[in-house]
């Protein structure tokens, strides 16, 4: 108790005392006056009155007992009683608290991850503006929208999910970046943690804002951060400020680390065809999203008349809706996963509560005598229930404390499981904050309801005439626990299976013999011809190495590729510029046509989806963007492994003059053997190059499988936790049932039943609720699996077999022990 509380309590009781004194003094005074008025001597009157009143102290004491704060002392008494009881039974207390710690801890961990993103709220009135196709818009379009619209008071644009390299040379580090334009921060109501944030007037300046995390780790929370230089992709930016820890940018559940003005993309600022921006805005007051959409569509129509494209494009109306501002390809997956994980940990929590309920029932049976004596001594039922519930509350709080501590440690371990970044700077962030603690506390209180209520009500109803037996409740608990563990294990099974499938997924290229290098020549300040020349040198030098089968340049490689080009009539089509050897090098097979030759620029290759759209029914291949299409290749995922196939255009080039280019290398032996050799070869061509990182195709793929791997791992762990809880719960419940039947077993054995037959009987009897539980669990899993995807029969069968074996063992062990007891001593016990 802090000194403030102590002071408050003493003030409160002081006031009570004073009230009581005054009340009694008034009474005595009035009586004395009455006597004096009747003619008595004042001293006599006083003596008489005091004698008649009796002991003033005893009256006061009796009054105090009924003071408003009596319940407080009753609570203190209950707590003391509960604490004493729990500490007298350390085994029970440890078991129950451990169950609750697992149940609550699992919830706290998952919530600490979900919390950071689900509750990153978007202020009221903020909407997303986007063409229905979801295509990004160009800078000039954004400018027109910003300037000409009459329905928004603030408009902003952003290019999320950019990979920035910050710092220079050996200290450089890849981070997740975002180019922001317009009133991005003000509209999203982000307040700076240090310095200031960017606004519409900063557009042309090389300014940047950094995340709280980056500020802490790279700049050691330097308070004088504003004004320092941050190199982004080898260009100096001035740091304007730091965003608060709660703001994560537009790529949730990944956390953005750097927000920069468009100074990196000066080349894009004069184009109307280059779509690269997503837009959001704040509605003027009184404007509904639907009105805004109508206004934006008529504005768009005017603009299209004013700036007609090369060819009339397909209608693509503008949609204005509440965000969903996350542009991350895994956001939807993350939402589904969050809901699923919360459900699963919720079930784990309920299993834990059922366990504790079972333990409490068992203990109530052991405490029958004590409870009966208390009831006979006149303790009211309400008070008794309150005392038992206080015990549950203490257990819940104990479990929550352990659970929160474990969650705190496990959270870090879990975050470390995802390699600190999934694909470079992409991080999942988690934190134990007030909201997480409140959630944990709520679960602790909830456990009083779920675990404590039924057992304590039942315990308070006991009497010695009807011996404490609660077979129906316990059997129900067994059914529920078995069903819940089947469900959790089946859910884990779905994810482990789907991860296994994803591992076996065909990425559309041959990752097993692929080595990749992302090259940036920005530091070298080459002219275009020099750049072209240098890339040719790199290609030839690598190709000349022994064991290299072929080498190709490409501006972007699959997975994470967001480049798009506008094609008349088709709209925005995903694209990449690649060398003629690209398909052979990547191991992408030919479906139709012929491979481009080394000396043939200005050709194009399309994927199946684009070919089907342009030339269905195997019509002859035509031209696209003034390029002859010579080949059709399979649909290769370009942005994420699980995307639905979409049209893709490969533009063939023999010269590469952009400073950012990738190298695909096909090797004869495992590609990892060549990584250092390739890096050294390239580094030798120019010492000013930043460190060269060669990644194998499989390393690249693994980055994209991380979320699935994490899901499988997380759910697998939860499944095991659920199983462990269910096993101990089953064991405790079945063992308890058997202990109560020990006399009956002893009688049976004494009357000559063979032990084996008794054992078989016991196993049969416990098999009924277990089988019922399995049936319910399988039915629930089947329904649940339809939501999630496929659950194959072998996995489900394995789970059923596991549960059945475990329950049989949980019965057999205590049954065997019960059978070994000498019948005579068992009977004497009663």
């Amino acid at each position, binding site marked *: 108790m802090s000194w403030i509380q102590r002071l408050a309590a003493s003030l409160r009781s002081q006031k009570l005392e004073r009230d009581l004194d005054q*009340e009694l003094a008034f*009474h005595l005074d009035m009586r004395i006056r009455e006597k004096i008025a009747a003619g008595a001597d004042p001293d006599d009157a006083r003596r008489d009155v005091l004698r008649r009143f009796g002991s003033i102290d005893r009256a006061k004491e009796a009054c105090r007992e009924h003071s408003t704060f009596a319940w407080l002392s009753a609570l203190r008494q209950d707590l003391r009683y509960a604490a004493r009881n729990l500490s007298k039974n350390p085994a029970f207390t440890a078991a129950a608290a451990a169950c609750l710690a697992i149940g609550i801890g699992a919830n706290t961990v998952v919530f600490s991850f979900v919390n950071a993103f689900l509750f990153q709220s978007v202020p009221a009135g903020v909407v997303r503006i986007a063409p229905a196709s979801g295509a990004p818009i160009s800078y000039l379009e954004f400018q027109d929208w910003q300037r000409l619209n009459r329905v928004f008071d603030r408009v902003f644009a952003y290019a999320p999910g950019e990979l920035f390299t910050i710092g220079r040379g050996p200290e450089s580090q890849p981070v997740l970046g975002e180019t922001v334009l317009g009133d991005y921060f003000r509209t999203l109501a982000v307040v700076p943690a240090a310095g200031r944030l960017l606004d519409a007037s900063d557009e042309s300046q090389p300014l940047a804002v950094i995340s709280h995390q980056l500020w802490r780790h790279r700049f050691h929370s330097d308070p004088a951060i504003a004004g320092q230089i941050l190199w982004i992709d080898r260009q100096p930016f001035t740091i304007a400020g730091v965003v608060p820890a709660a703001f994560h940018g537009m790529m949730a559940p990944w956390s953005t680390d750097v927000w920069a003005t468009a100074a990196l993309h000066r080349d894009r600022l004069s184009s109307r065809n280059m779509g690269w921006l997503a837009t959001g805005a704040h509605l003027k007051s009184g404007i509904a999203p639907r009105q805004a959409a109508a206004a934006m569509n008529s504005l768009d129509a005017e603009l299209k008349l004013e700036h007609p494209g090369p060819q009339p494009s397909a209608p693509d109306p503008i949609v204005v809706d509440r965000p969903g501002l996350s542009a991350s390809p895994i956001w939807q997956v993350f939402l589904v996963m969050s809901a699923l994980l919360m459900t699963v940990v919720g079930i784990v929590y309920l299993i834990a509560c059922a366990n504790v309920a079972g333990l409490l029932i068992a203990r109530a049976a052991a405490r029958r005598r004590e409870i009966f004596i208390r009831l006979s001594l006149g303790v009211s039922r309400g008070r008794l229930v309150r005392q038992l519930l206080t015990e549950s509350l203490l257990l819940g709080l104990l479990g929550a404390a352990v659970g929160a501590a474990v969650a705190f440690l496990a959270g870090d371990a879990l975050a470390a499981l995802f390699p600190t970044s999934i694909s470079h700077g992409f991080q999942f962030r988690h934190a134990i904050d007030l909201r997480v603690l409140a959630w944990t506390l709520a679960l602790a209180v909830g456990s009083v309801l779920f675990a404590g209520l039924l057992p304590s009500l039942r315990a308070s109803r006991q009497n010695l005439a009807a011996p404490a037996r609660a077979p129906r409740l316990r059997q129900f608990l067994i059914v529920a626990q078995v069903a819940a563990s089947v469900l959790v294990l089946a859910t884990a099974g779905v994810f482990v299976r789907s991860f296994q499938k994803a591992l076996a997924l065909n990425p559309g290229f041959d990752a097993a013999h692929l080595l990749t290098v992302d090259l940036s020549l920005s530091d070298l300040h080459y002219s275009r011809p020099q750049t072209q020349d240098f890339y040719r040198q790199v290609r030839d030098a690598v190709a000349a190495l022994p064991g290299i089968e072929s080498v190709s340049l490409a501006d972007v490689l699959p997975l994470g590729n967001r480049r798009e080009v506008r094609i008349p009539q088709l709209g925005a089509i995903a694209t990449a510029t690649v060398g003629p050897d690209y398909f052979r090098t990547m191991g992408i097979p030919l479906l139709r046509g012929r491979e481009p030759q080394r000396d043939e620029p200005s050709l194009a290759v399309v994927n199946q989806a684009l070919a089907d759209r342009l030339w269905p029914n195997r019509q002859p291949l035509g031209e696209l963007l003034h390029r002859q299409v010579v080949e059709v290749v399979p649909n290769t995922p370009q942005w994420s492994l699980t995307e639905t196939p979409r049209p893709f255009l490969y533009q063939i080039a023999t010269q590469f003059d952009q400073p950012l280019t990738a190298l695909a290398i096909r090797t004869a032996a495992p590609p990892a053997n060549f990584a250092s050799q390739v890096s050294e070869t390239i580094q030798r061509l120019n010492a000013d190059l930043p460190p060269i990182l060669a990644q194998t195709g499989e390393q690249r793929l693994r980055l994209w499988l991380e979320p699935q791997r994490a899901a499988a791992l997380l759910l697998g762990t939860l499944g095991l936790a659920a199983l462990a809880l269910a096993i101990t719960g089953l064991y405790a419940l079945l063992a308890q049932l058997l202990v109560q039947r020990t006399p009956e077993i002893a009688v049976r054995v004494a009357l000559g039943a063979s032990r084996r037959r008794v054992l078989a009987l016991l196993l049969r009897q416990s098999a009924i609720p277990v089988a019922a539980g399995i049936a319910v669990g399988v039915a629930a899993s089947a329904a649940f699996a339809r939501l999630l995807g496929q659950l194959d029969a072998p996995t489900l069968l394995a789970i059923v077999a596991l549960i059945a074996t475990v329950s049989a063992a949980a019965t057999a062990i205590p049954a065997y022990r019960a059978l070994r007891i000498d019948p005579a001593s068992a009977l004497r016990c009663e």
Partner: protein
Amino acid sequence: MTKTKGDVLRGTLDLLILKTLEAGPMHGYGIASRIEQVSEELLRVEEGSLYPALHRIQQTGWIRAQWKKSENGRPAKFYRLTAAGQKQLHSEEERWRKLTRGVSKILRFA
């Protein structure tokens, strides 16, 4: 202490307090005096248990307390009957009537 006047029967004190307060708010001294006066001095409230009883009844919500100026100008704690107290009073009265009817029948015939 001379026992010339009948001490209030245990358990009936609550009923008497509630009934007395039905007439309007009153302080402890007033309640005691009024019970004696109305019962024509037949009943005498044991003062040492009056105040604990008042505090106890206050806990149940049947009466509320408030400090007010008394008739002679000194502040005193006035007790007032609440709606719940009114209801309780009715059921207590009913119970009491049944009890006395039963007891007097036995006294007549036993």
